[in-house]
């Protein structure tokens, strides 16, 4: 990483900043310095206080004690995002864009350029186009946000920040939902901003990315500042150790090999849908089958079709040796097939409801006694789910939307287990989840397989595919590019298939 | 009923026309704009307008009548624009939903050269009006008050159920109060709006009955309200304690008067058929070929058991 642009001039700093919410203290006298033109990574497990610190640095929270300095001056940052006027811009993980408006309208939202009483659309569009070109983004100012991919939406956020002449750009886990290619594109953009002298704070769970992009790293743990170091001083292992504060035990549980003659519980033959072509594979009892490939390669589409969520054009699905066609999620459920979506917030959980109704929703018919809901049985199931999947909620009446990503994922696992499935399909099982919880989820998955269930894991994180799967299907552009077993399951093999460089004969 | 002198001749002309089945020298179009049938009385207006349209069109081969209904002043103003621009009317008969806001739209119609006949409501500029046909709201109030004072021998308690809060209601109410206050022995316990609506009449009367232990007379002002009041009184079993005076001359009410119902000894006329009168008089100017002007006031006489048969039309809708 070039150090050329980095100076020691501090633009934004926190000194002895503490923050409590009521009686709960979440930050303890944290110090932090951001220099002009540097990319400063902020790492730590979920709950370490990264987000809170970022919010304090952008004025969204006020510190309980301690000071924030901007350009060397003590400052009380104005709340509600008004700090953007000072050039401090926070890009949330859940992007803050008006879905129905266009790119241009979003970028200039709230400070539209006018010609007398009328909007000066032309000039705004030109400006936005200029920024987009600068970033090398292939979108038009007239595109609607809802038609864009997540990565593209992120670009819009960056353009928004550029248009405000941001001096400090704070990005909360920008890469969590990006593919590797998209991440690289984002990094190129960050590099360009950095060269223009913008200071960037960046948080991520993906340590290899930190290694690649950051100049300095600040590690936080349990609300405390642990260390700030130049990136080259730290190895990935060292970062992880600082974060966790202990030696990381092995992330992945040991693999139990599957009997070669174990029953084939699911077989798909020559499946075609709108998005995928000629899909054929087998899933055996007790097997963990990985589905790898780029985002958009059709992995999710295959299983949505199998589970009755999308139309099948042609092809056959065999369950336990019987030709079957599932037309709805209800039929899939009754056939013992559960699909756990990657979109926890939009398709997985009722965010405004408590744990119990979420947990029992899929298996609702199991909780009926004399045509009425059996509240007792539901309560028992909730207690059971919380215990089995180690759901840690401070308040049992918490609504799903207020739970952490890890706990939400555990709740979803508990939810699909209520139907006692034989086949479990988990899409992106650890997206946006901290290391500790990841480890737990991997062991749950391994335990399910050991209990005789068959598991499909769809994942964009190659290490987890390699770490837990017995067999890996790699998709490329709607087709199965290859099926890997044993020693073939390694990063370079998967990448070759996933990028279409190599094809199974 | 008061005729202005100019009209007398015109009516004579109408009599001639009826007997012959006239063809005009040219084709004329009459626009009729009335409120939507939102309660019994306007329902009657709609009915009479429709019937009269058919009758007049059969009578005069060259007369075309365009009938439009509107729920509020804005849509009625739109209707007027359409009548002028699309139908090119020669005469307008209008029962305004509200006289004030419609004055200017009517001025535009007048400017197009059409004769203006206004029914039952006054405009803010009455110089626009060629023919005015109306009921007498003040008289309705006065007649009702006079009868009630007399029937109660000048003493007792009255409750009043009013219509919608618009000028017609005010005129009736003010005249009633002026007359009733002449009898010092009569107390008006309270007045509430029942919106010329049966359901509201029922509910408001229920509450009056709960609130006042002794009510001697009810002025319901309108027959729709009165029908609701009757049900509430029956439910409370207080039929023998009081009597009800409605208004309009709805056939159900006239029937009760005719049958000598103690609860409803009289009714006060306010006929929706005035729209028919207005249309007929307006049609006359095409027959006579001379401009017709004047004011025609339909009175509000008391309908009693003796004269009820005269006002009872069992086949009428209203």
């Amino acid at each position: 990483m070039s150090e050329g642009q980095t100076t020691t001039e501090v633009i934004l700093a926190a000194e002895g900043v503490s923050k409590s919410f009521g009686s709960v203290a979440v930050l303890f006298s944290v110090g932090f310095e951001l220099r002009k033109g540097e990319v400063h990574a902020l790492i730590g497990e979920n709950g370490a206080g990264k987000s809170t610190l970022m919010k304090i640095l952008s004025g969204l929270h006020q510190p309980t004690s301690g000071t924030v300095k901007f350009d060397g001056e003590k400052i009380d940052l104005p709340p509600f995002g008004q700090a953007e006027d000072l050039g401090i811009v926070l890009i949330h993980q859940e992007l803050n864009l008006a879905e129905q408006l266009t790119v241009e309208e979003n970028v200039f939202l709230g400070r539209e350029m006018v010609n007398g009483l009328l909007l000066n659309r032309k000039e705004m569009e030109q400006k936005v186009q200029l920024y987009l070109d600068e970033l090398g983004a292939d979108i038009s100012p007239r595109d609607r946000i809802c038609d864009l991919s997540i990565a593209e939406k992120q670009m819009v956020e960056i353009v928004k920040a550029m248009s405000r002449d941001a001096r400090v750009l704070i990005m909360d886990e920008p890469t969590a939902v990006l593919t590797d290619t998209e991440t690289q594109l984002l990094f190129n953009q960050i590099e360009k901003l950095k060269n223009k002298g913008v200071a960037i704070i960046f948080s991520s769970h993906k340590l290899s990315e930190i290694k690649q992009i950051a100049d300095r790293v600040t590690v936080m743990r349990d609300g405390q500042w642990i260390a700030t170091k130049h990136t080259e001083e730290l190895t990935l292992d060292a970062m992880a150790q600082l974060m966790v504060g202990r030696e990381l035990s092995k992330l992945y549980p040991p693999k139990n090999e599957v009997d070669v003659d174990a029953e084939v519980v699911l077989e798909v033959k020559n499946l075609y849908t709108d998005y995928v072509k000629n899909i054929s594979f087998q899933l055996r009892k007790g097997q963990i089958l990985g589905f790898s490939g780029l985002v958009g390669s059709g992995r999710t589409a295959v299983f949505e079709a199998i589970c009755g969520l999308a139309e099948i054009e042609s092809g056959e699905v065999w369950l336990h040796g019987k030709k079957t066609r599932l037309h709805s999620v209800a039929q899939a459920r009754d056939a013992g097939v559960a699909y756990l979506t990657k979109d926890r917030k939009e398709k997985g959980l009722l965010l405004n409801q408590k744990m119990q109704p979420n947990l029992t929703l899929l298996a609702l018919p199991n909780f009926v006694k004399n045509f009425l809901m059996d509240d007792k049985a539901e309560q028992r199931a909730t207690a059971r789910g919380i215990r089995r999947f180690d759901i840690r909620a401070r308040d049992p009446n918490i609504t799903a939307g207020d739970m952490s990503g890890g706990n939400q994922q555990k709740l979803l696992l508990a939810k699909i287990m209520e139907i006692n499935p034989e086949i479990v399909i988990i899409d992106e099982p650890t997206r946006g989840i901290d290391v500790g919880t990841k480890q737990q989820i991997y062991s749950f998955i391994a335990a399910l397989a050991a209990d005789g269930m068959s598991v499909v894991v769809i994942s964009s994180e190659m290490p987890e595919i390699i770490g837990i799967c017995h067999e890996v299907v790699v998709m490329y552009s709607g087709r199965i590019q290859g099926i890997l077993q044993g020693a073939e399951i390694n990063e370079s093999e998967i990448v070759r298939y996933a990028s279409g460089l190599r094809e199974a004969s | 009923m008061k005729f202005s002198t100019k009209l007398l001749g015109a009516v004579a002309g109408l009599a001639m026309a009826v007997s012959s089945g006239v063809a005009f020298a040219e084709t004329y179009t009459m626009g009729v704009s009335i409120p939507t049938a939102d309660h019994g009385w306007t329902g009657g207006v709609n009915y009479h307008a429709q019937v009269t349209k058919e009758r007049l069109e059969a009578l005069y081969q060259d007369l075309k009548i365009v009938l439009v209904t509107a729920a509020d002043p804005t849509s009625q103003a739109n209707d007027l624009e359409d009548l002028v621009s699309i139908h090119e009317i020669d005469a307008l008969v209008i029962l305004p939903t509200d006289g004030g806001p419609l004055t200017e739209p009517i001025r535009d119609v007048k400017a197009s050269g059409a004769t203006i006949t206004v029914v039952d409501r006054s405009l803010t500029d009455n110089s626009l009006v060629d023919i005015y046909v109306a009921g007498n709201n003040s008289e309705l109030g006065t007649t009702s008050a006079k009868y009630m004072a007399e029937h109660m021998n000048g003493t007792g308690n009255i409750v009043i159920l009013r219509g919608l809060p618009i000028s017609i209601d005010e005129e009736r109410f003010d005249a009633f109060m002026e007359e009733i206050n002449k009898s010092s022995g009569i107390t008006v316990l309270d007045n509430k709006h029942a919106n010329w609506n049966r359901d509201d009449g029922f509910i408001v009367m229920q509450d009056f009955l709960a609130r006042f232990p002794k009510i001697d007379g009810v002025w319901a002002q309108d027959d729709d309200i009165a029908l609701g009041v009757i049900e509430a009184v029956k439910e409370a079993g207080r039929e023998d304690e009081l009597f009800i005076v409605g208004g309009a001359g709805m056939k159900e009410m006239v029937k009760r008067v005719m049958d000598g119902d103690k609860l409803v000894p009289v009714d006060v006329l306010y006929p929706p058929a005035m729209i028919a009168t207005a249309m007929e008089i307006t049609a006359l100017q095409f027959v006579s070929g001379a401009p017709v002007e004047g004011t025609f006031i339909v009175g509000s006489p008391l309908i009693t058991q003796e004269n009820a048969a005269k006002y009872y039309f069992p086949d009428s809708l209203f």
Partner: protein
Amino acid sequence: MAEIDLNEVDKKSKKGMLSKLDFKTLGPFIAMIVLFIFGYLINDAFINSGNLSNILTRSSFIGIIAVGATFVITAGGIDLSVGSMAAFISGIMILVMNELKTVMEPGLTIIFAGVAISVVLGIAAGFINGFLTTKGKIEAFIVTLGSMGIYRSLVTYSADGGTISLDREVRAIYRPVYYEDLFGIPIPVLVFVAVAIIGYILLNKTVFGRHCFAIGSNENVAKYSAVNVDITRIKTYILQGICVSIATIIYVPRLGSASAQTGTLWELEAIAAVIIGGTMLKGGYGRIWGTVMGALILTMIGNILNLTDLISNYLNGAVQGVIIVVAVYLQRGDWKKKK
């Protein structure tokens, strides 16, 4: 960020004593008690049994319709057509009964035929609304705005702009359904209570009810959780239609007539009752008992205004508006939040 929003946690833990009083649940009930006391202070005739029975009986129409609306709204829909639908069903019901009277002796058969027609029409009308919003993929607001206009003009048309009146003899047989008591309680009130109890069980104790909550919270999540979104939604509209028909069945004997004016603004009153009761207008959360309270509150406001001459008649609407907004504000409980 995937951490627990500590602001939320904090808010909950800090409420302390106040949180023991769950305003979300008790809000409408408290509002009703306050109105009750207010009514008594204004005029002690308010609490005599006749008046209270009037209030209960009167609120039964809106109340029954609002119970249906609770399902529709909880599932994230809206039905603006209920008032017109009530007028239309009343009108057709009366016309059918009058027609039957020309061919048979007036008796219970005619009444039952009228009731049957009403229920069939209610189910059909609800199904049409539901079908168009789900399979037709048109927003519920537009579909029901359309059907609202259609039913209203159909009833005006059937009545030739006037009033459709039930035959005298038939009415004499039917009249007790509104005016008589059973076990000392007016029949409409009993029907209201029965509808509310059944509604409560359906919404809170059955799979169907849970599905309504799920759909209203997030249609996609419901779909991915094996809920048949379209069928459930159609069922809510059918239920709404049945509730309208039940309300009609007890409305018709009251005045024995239907006109273009019947049921005007009932849709807004029903929606107001539902929202006052604590159901979320955007869906995902519904409460039948709240709705019952909401209907009672609305009726009580009108009743109290009729019992006093302190407030100008012209301000009735303003008083109602203020009370509705305050009642909802109280039960949302946001006023306890600091800052």
